[in-house]
């Protein structure tokens, strides 16, 4: 990457308000006369509601109103409108809101919540993918045929299938006939939680003219606006969504969350402001979590190590609502393998309803889970073929410009450098080299790698826009619609403006707070798309601004526009750096010596839409699904303690192909992604009892890695191979950083002790069982060695 003044430099975050405690979050927004809402959760995972008695709650002093399901006889949702506002007729998961209380104080609302009596008739809960698909399974969504679905979602009413996706490339039977080696595998991941720090909160008010205002904790203000408007039948222009700092989202705050609840309550209460704030336990029940996964795979290769066929049955356990998860089912279906060219692919990806907590997007959007399965297939193939794990990957890696995607379109020539990341990561982890043996005979070390790719999963027309304004002092305000949740996109955007206009980055402000009625539109802040999409819109806006500056200078100096250049915050006649006008001088237009003014305020606008992505064929999946793919490889060295079965990650290596705008913030993403990925691999799981009750809706028993559990060594490199239409070549990395870890760790454990783990989390309990089953001789040998040693 060529050298720039601001781009590519580790410039610290411009906004430091979090450090000083000045940052405003949605929780901090309190309105005069505000009422408090409280939701009451179902005590059964699956039950008919025979009756509900609200009278006790209504008698509590301070209670203003109590709502139940029938008050809101419609469903809400993005891709599959399958959500009741409050349960109507039936509850679909343990904890589903069945009633809502609005009171003058939170205390009164809580007291009233205790007094709501629901008469349930318990039904058999459906708790696993296998149960949900069995022919005699109870049907969870009995009226699925009446639901509103996005055009690309293929549900099967009368079953528990929320979406059924088919991907077909080549002829898979023919492919398997050519295969010399075929490996099979079944892989599972449980439901998990995003475990973001900030619980959800939303405060809404409705004006007498019908204008709705809401402050809430979300990722994508414009998606909240659109879905609120669409769900409640409001005009978009009358819905104003305010975005503050978001205390972590990781996909869990994409789309519409619970915003409709305080809005609906406020509407029914003459517009009085209503606030719904969740505590940690409620957040586990009322907010969507991440789906569980089951992969059945068969992958074939020739003895030369060429992949020739892949067959897969992929299942997502979406819980009670599949609103967002149907799209994740598409994501793993369209990108069903690692970053390799395979001529023959046959994959069915099925999103299934169960009576568990609803699920939604999660950092990686299915790619971490799919790679957990597929990258173990690769290591198994390498072992069967007697080919080095790196070599097998290199022989099959996507070649930009030559290879074809699973969706049958040719990979663009500047797509990146998959093979480069594989080689470098293998080198950094010393794959295939001798590993230092720990002195304790019960400790075993191993290394493993996992390559990956991912791009945003979005509608083919997911748009972005940007506005750039010049202030009187020559400083710049940038208006974009992307959400700020700690990922740092707004900092990168400021660096781009500074670079393009040649002004200090301190003079560029991209506010972290924004409202939908006062910034430029962006579809969503998801899919690692922010920098790529807003960045392109912003570059066009800067171009627009520069053209205006050139126009003014051309009038003032009586030259053609193309004789003017903009740099160092000035528009100058080329070759005459003394004939210049500064941005400050023309911020509000330029005043000529005789007092006449020209042009007026400088304001640039730019738009972006991924013009090259297309719809995908419903029968085969053929089409261009993504505007970019970031390629990378992760590798780890682990130490397995064969006595306690604890796995420690000693070293974690990340190599990504893309250049980055801010290497400091990018490293932050890499470290955070690695810790999150390792935590998911070793600890995290939402557990339910046989009745479907969530057993660990808290951080006492939903275990997330602590500071001490971070690897001793984390290494990251960015190869700087950019895509031409990306801003300064930079593709997204936010989600990418957490994709490889489960697969890499599983491969490293196999490298260390020859035991294959195909189910997350890899707890000591599970590893003990696996070792006893797969390699009992290891334990016997260790026992013998320990006895002899003494």
């Amino acid at each position: 990457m060529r050298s720039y003044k601001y781009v590519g430099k580790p410039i610290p975050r411009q906004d430091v308000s979090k450090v000083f405690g000045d940052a405003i979050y949605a929780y901090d927004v309190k309105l005069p006369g505000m009422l408090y809402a409280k939701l009451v959760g179902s005590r059964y995972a699956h039950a008919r509601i025979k009756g509900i008695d609200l009278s006790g709650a209504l008698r509590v002093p301070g209670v203003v109103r109590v709502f139940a399901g029938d008050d809101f006889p419609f469903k809400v949702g993005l891709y599959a409108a399958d959500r009741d506002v409050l349960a109507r007729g039936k509850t679909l998961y343990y904890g589903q809101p069945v009633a809502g209380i609005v009171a003058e104080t939170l205390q009164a609302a809580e007291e009233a919540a205790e007094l709501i009596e629901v008469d349930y008739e318990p039904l058999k809960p459906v708790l696993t993918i296998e149960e949900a698909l069995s022919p005699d399974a109870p049907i969870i969504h009995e009226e699925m045929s009446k639901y509103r679905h996005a055009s690309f979602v293929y549900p099967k009413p009368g079953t528990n299938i929320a979406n059924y996706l088919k991907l077909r490339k080549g002829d898979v039977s023919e492919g398997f006939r050519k295969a010399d080696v075929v490996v099979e595998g079944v892989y599972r991941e449980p439901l998990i939680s995003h475990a973001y720090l900030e619980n959800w909160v939303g405060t809404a008010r409705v004006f007498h003219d019908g204008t709705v205002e809401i402050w809430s904790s979300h990722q994508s203000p414009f998606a909240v606006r659109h879905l609120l408007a669409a769900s409640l039948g409001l005009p978009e222009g009358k819905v104003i969504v305010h975005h503050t700092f978001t205390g972590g989202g990781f996909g869990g705050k994409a789309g519409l969350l619970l915003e409709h609840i305080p809005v609906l309550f406020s509407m029914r209460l003459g517009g009085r402001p209503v606030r719904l704030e969740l505590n940690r336990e409620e957040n586990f029940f009322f907010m969507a979590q991440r789906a569980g996964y089951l992969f059945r795979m068969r992958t074939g290769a020739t003895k030369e190590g060429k992949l020739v066929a892949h067959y897969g049955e992929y299942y997502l356990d979406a819980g009670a609502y599949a609103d967002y998860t149907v799209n994740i089912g598409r994501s793993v279906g369209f990108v069903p393998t690692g970053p390799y060219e395979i001529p023959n692919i046959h994959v069915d990806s099925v999103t299934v309803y169960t009576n568990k907590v609803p699920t939604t997007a999660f950092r990686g959007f299915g790619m971490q889970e799919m790679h957990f399965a597929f990258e173990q297939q690769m290591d198994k193939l390498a072992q069967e073929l007697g080919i080095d794990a790196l070599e097998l990957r290199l022989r099959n890696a996507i070649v930009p410009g030559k290879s074809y995607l699973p969706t049958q379109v040719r990979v663009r020539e500047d797509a990146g450098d998959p093979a480069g990341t594989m080689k470098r990561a293998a080198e950094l982890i010393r794959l295939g080299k001798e590993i230092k043996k720990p002195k304790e005979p019960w400790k075993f070390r191993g290394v493993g790698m996992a390559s990956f790719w991912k791009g945003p999963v979005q509608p083919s027309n997911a748009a972005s826009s940007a506005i750039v304004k010049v202030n009187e002092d020559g400083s710049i305000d940038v208006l974009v619609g992307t959400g700020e949740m700690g990922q740092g996109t707004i900092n990168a955007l400021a660096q781009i403006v500074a670079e393009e206009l040649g002004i200090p980055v301190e003079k560029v402000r991209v506010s972290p707070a924004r409202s939908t009625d006062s910034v430029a539109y962006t579809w969503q802040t998801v899919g690692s798309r922010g920098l790529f999409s807003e960045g392109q819109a912003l570059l066009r806006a800067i171009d627009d601004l520069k053209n205006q500056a050139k126009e003014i200078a051309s009038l003032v100096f009586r030259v053609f526009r193309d004789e003017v250049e903009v740099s160092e915050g000035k528009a100058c006649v080329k070759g005459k750096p003394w004939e210049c006008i500064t941005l400050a001088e023309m911020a509000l237009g330029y005043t000529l010596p005789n007092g006449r003014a020209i042009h007026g305020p400088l304001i640039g606008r730019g738009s972006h839409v991924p013009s090259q992505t297309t719809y995908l064929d419903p029968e085969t999946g053929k089409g261009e699904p993504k505007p970019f793919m970031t390629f990378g490889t992760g590798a780890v060295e682990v130490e397995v303690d064969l006595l306690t079965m604890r796995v420690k990650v000693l070293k974690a290596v990340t190599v990504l192909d893309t250049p980055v705008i801010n290497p400091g913030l990018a490293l932050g993403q890499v470290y955070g992604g690695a810790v999150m990925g390792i935590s998911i691999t070793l600890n995290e799981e939402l557990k339910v009892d046989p009745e479907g009750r969530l057993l660990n809706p808290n951080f006492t028993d939903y275990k997330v890695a602590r500071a001490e559990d971070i690897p001793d060594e984390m290494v990251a490199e960015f190869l700087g191979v950019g895509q031409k239409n990306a801003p300064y070549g930079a593709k997204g990395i936010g989600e990418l950083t957490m994709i490889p870890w489960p697969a890499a760790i599983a491969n490293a454990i196999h490298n260390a002790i020859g035991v294959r783990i195909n189910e997350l989390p890899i707890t000591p309990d599970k590893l003990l069982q696996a070792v006893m089953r797969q390699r009992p001789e290891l334990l016997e040998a260790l026992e013998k060695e320990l006895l002899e040693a003494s």
Partner: protein
Amino acid sequence: MVEAVKLSRHNLFNTHIIPVNFKYFAPKTLNEALELLDKYGKEAKILAGGTDLLVKMKMRLVEPKYIINIKGIRELNFIKDEGNQVRIGALTRWRQLEKSELIKNFFPSLYDAVKVMGGTQIRNMATVGGNLCNASPAADSAPPLMVLNAKLVLASKKGEREIPITQFFKGPGKTVMEPDELLKEITIPKPEEGSGSAFIKVARTSMDLAKISAATALKVEDRKIVMVRIAIGSAAPTPVRTPKTEEALIGQPFRPSIIREKVKLVVNEISPIDDVRSTAFYRKEVSKIIVEDALLISYERASRR
């Protein structure tokens, strides 16, 4: 045991921190506290650090009518060296134990436990008495105090009694304390010359509750084991000593192979369950391993003294 969500009767998700009305007292002296317990003991709960009680209240596992906050009783916060024994006031914070040279030098097993109990914030709030009276099978202080032969002084308006810690626990959340009694202090005899002790905890992450834990104390003379005590946490309804294993080890030469063979007996002396943190199978398998490790560390420490 897998009752993680036994919340309130009507609204399972209403987990506000103070869900029911109660009367609150904050006595400043032990006598005041004992008076209050005498009056309200049956319906009262003692609040010391609150790190266990508030969680239980929040989840409606307890709904006390009276709360007696004893945190202000200064006379119960001390660590005193009395020559042949050390006395620890029930309200001593874990952080104080962590910073005490006395604890570190004489009771290394207790010190091991202190270092892995919660994070600094929890150790600043939590009291050693509260950890014991909460009577969790996973209480980090219990196994070390059991192998150190600690005694507990229980006080009531009627007087005081002293019991060995091994007789204190009755079941999960249950102790032998009468409703009018308060744990006043813990006395630990200084370990005999040439002995050593250790504590090991296996947990899901750092700063976590134990999947399983073990403490040992050991003395070896002329290469023979002359004293050994073993206690295991999170493997039975209460923390337990393992007398049969101890008996089998006494008189044996201290050789790793012999230790390895004999500690296998601990499996018969525990009755672990499957729960949200671990499985009975794992707990059994690993109990013997951490007991063995703790014994080896105890031995090393004994020889260093």
